[in-house]
């Protein structure tokens, strides 16, 4: 009575699906976009998380370029704007989309409901789209930015990381039945440095250097101010010592 045709049917479907699924850029874009579905007897919630890997960004840019028949210069300009919007120089961007078909979602304060695990440590976002704090009755999506560098040491957090895991708290919706949504991406072969090659990368690097220069100039000014204060105090002390010696 057992259904012996089932394994064969399963293999057929797998092969068929593998065949049906495939298209150069879409396959790359899909790879970095993951969806988790939650259901609670009448209510449903889909959460889609997209990790902006170098591969994903390149595929997005190339897809736009192909679609619009851009020249190399146009592509570079778009890429520059795109990278700048993503704050890649100091952030790890993730886009989160919520499709809610159940009671309203209340996710505020969103920054306390989402984390990124990198190399054994959990990080809260440094910034996020404030609309994610809204009451949500249908769909919403927004960017969430996690720190790319360690706050104390300045180390690149993704350097040497094999996987990253995004968590969204189960307390944002009762439809999730208190279960955390988890999204795992293998990033070992992803090379964000590659993004900064070419004209767009050079412009971004220039932006970053200008910012860094401004910061260093500010620090220099502070230090010079402090040095002036120290010098003034030294002069004051020396003057007082001279006065005392004369007494």
């Amino acid at each position, binding site marked *: 009575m057992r259904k012996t045709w089932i394994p064969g049917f399963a293999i057929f479907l797998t092969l068929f699906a593998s065949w049906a699924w495939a298209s150069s850029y879409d396959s790359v874009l899909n790879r970095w976009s*993951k969806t988790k579905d939650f259901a609670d007897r009448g*209510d449903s919630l889909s959460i889609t998380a997209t990790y902006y890997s170098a591969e994903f960004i390149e595929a997005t840019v190339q897809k736009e370029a192909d679609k619009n028949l851009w020249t190399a210069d146009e592509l570079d300009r778009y890429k520059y704007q795109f990278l700048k919007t993503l704050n890649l120089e100091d952030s790890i961007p993730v886009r989160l989309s919520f499709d809610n078909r159940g009671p309203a979602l209340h996710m505020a304060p969103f920054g306390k409901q989402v984390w990124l695990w990198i190399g054994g440590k959990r990080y809260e976002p440094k910034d996020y789209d*404030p609309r994610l704090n809204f009451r949500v009755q249908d769909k919403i999506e927004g960017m969430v930015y996690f720190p790319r560098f360690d706050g104390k040491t300045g180390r690149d957090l993704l350097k040497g990381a*094999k996987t990253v*895991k995004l968590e969204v708290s189960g307390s944002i919706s009762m439809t999730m039945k208190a279960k955390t949504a988890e999204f795992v991406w293998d990033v070992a072969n992803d090379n964000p440095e590659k993004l900064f090659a070419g004209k767009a990368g050079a412009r971004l690097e220039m932006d970053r250097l200008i910012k860094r220069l401004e910061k260093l100039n500010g620090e220099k000014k502070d230090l010079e101010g402090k040095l002036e204060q120290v010098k003034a105090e030294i002069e004051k002390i020396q003057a007082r010592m001279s006065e005392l010696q004369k007494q």
Partner: protein
Amino acid sequence: MKKIFALIAVAALVAFAAPAFAANPFADVPMNHWAYDAVAQLAASGIVVGYPDGAYKGGQPATRYEVAAIVARALAKVDMEKASKQDLEMLKKLVVEFKSELDALGVKVDKLDARVAVLEERIGGWKFGGNFRFTAKWADDSNYWGVDDDTNWTVDRFRWNITKYVDDNVTLNVRLQGGGGNSLDVVRAYATIKFPWDITAQVGRFPLDWEGDFYAGDFAGYMMNDAYVTDYDPLTTAVWFEKPFSMGKFEMFVAHEEGSETFSPELNWGTIFNWAHMIDYPVVTWEYVPDNYIYGARLAFDFNENFHVAANYVKYDFANEWAAVDVYPVYDDGWYLVHEFYGGDIDFSTLWGDLIVNFNENIAFKGQYFVQDLNDGWLYDDYTDDSPSAWKAILQVSQDALKFTDLWIEYAQLDQGFVFANADPYAWALSGSLFLDGPRVYADTAVLNIVAKQKWNDQWWTYVRYADFDVDDDDADYYNWTASVRYNYTPNLWFELGYDKLGGDAITKDGDDMVWFRTTVNF
């Protein structure tokens, strides 16, 4: 000092954000106005940022426009990480006070909804949501679906969720639910508490489901197969700890259920010894269910994005043995009262493993293997196996892969005597009356469940399901077909029309059909 700081901010911002008003000669916000202290306090607590240092050294009254410019700036820059409830209250109060100036500055408060809403979200207190569901069913006479008198119309659910974000470490969730003849009741009430070392605890009456990846749901998550062990809703009063780590998670819970003692005289329909015809006869039943604890632990691990495993364990530990007595009369050349005793040690546990292999983002293989350890109270009649097992294998393909539909193909085998610890997972297909004996499988059974779901667009969704129950007792074989069309009139209101059909050896009539129509409103 605070006032000076506030004025520094005023001047700097006016210079930066609203130069057109910088020369405004009307200093109409006196230095003793509460707004100075409010702005200074916001600046001191670091939620208003971005003021250049040393731009202003004096201490003069400001105009309302200048203060409004600060408020606009604060709305754009407020740092939610640092802002306390009091800070946000204050900022909101400033928005209200300077609303007309903000409007005049072109900073429409309505258009600033993002920031204003942020304030509302943080200080609004209790949050509400919920839904309402109306269902109408039509079926044959004397149907398996339990539809009274062919037709049944009911408001079968009113659900009201209440959430309170108490502080960064505590969230409170409460659900009131009624409908389908039940009065509104508190069905969930629990606190989510964050502890150091990334540990989270749920305390109270909460749902717990460790098998959510392994059962199919329709678009709304009901009327499909369910978990074999967990998916408690709610888990009776309990504590649940979670400790995530980089590539996995450890979870454990303990719950306690009060026992019960029932005494119930009733009339049963049956044959009394050596009587040639059926009559009603009285049965008096007494049952004692002892208190019990439920313990559970789970360790889940992701080797990478494509390979996930988990080990799970749940044990029901009763304080005493379960006992029951049936007393009924028998006529055998005179009337006798017969006593039938049942009982025994009904502790039992389930150990199971999970495996998920993602071939790519659209195709996954999932498998589960369960084994139970039953104490002697579960062993009677044909139930002689004290370690029944079950397994299921699933192929899941997303609509993105096939371009036309999602597919869920599930095959499961269940040993005779396997106990569904929490709830009947196949209740949607009337398993309770067809292949289960109370909470357990009465004969070796194979289940095939195929679900094809398709979202044609945002409005129209459909699914088709075929479930086949192949029971070792051939007379119990049966199948269930379901087809449904859903129209999403808005994201918060949808209508669903469905058809169900039962057939097979176990269905004593020539099939059994039901048509149902459901309306759901979310709020």
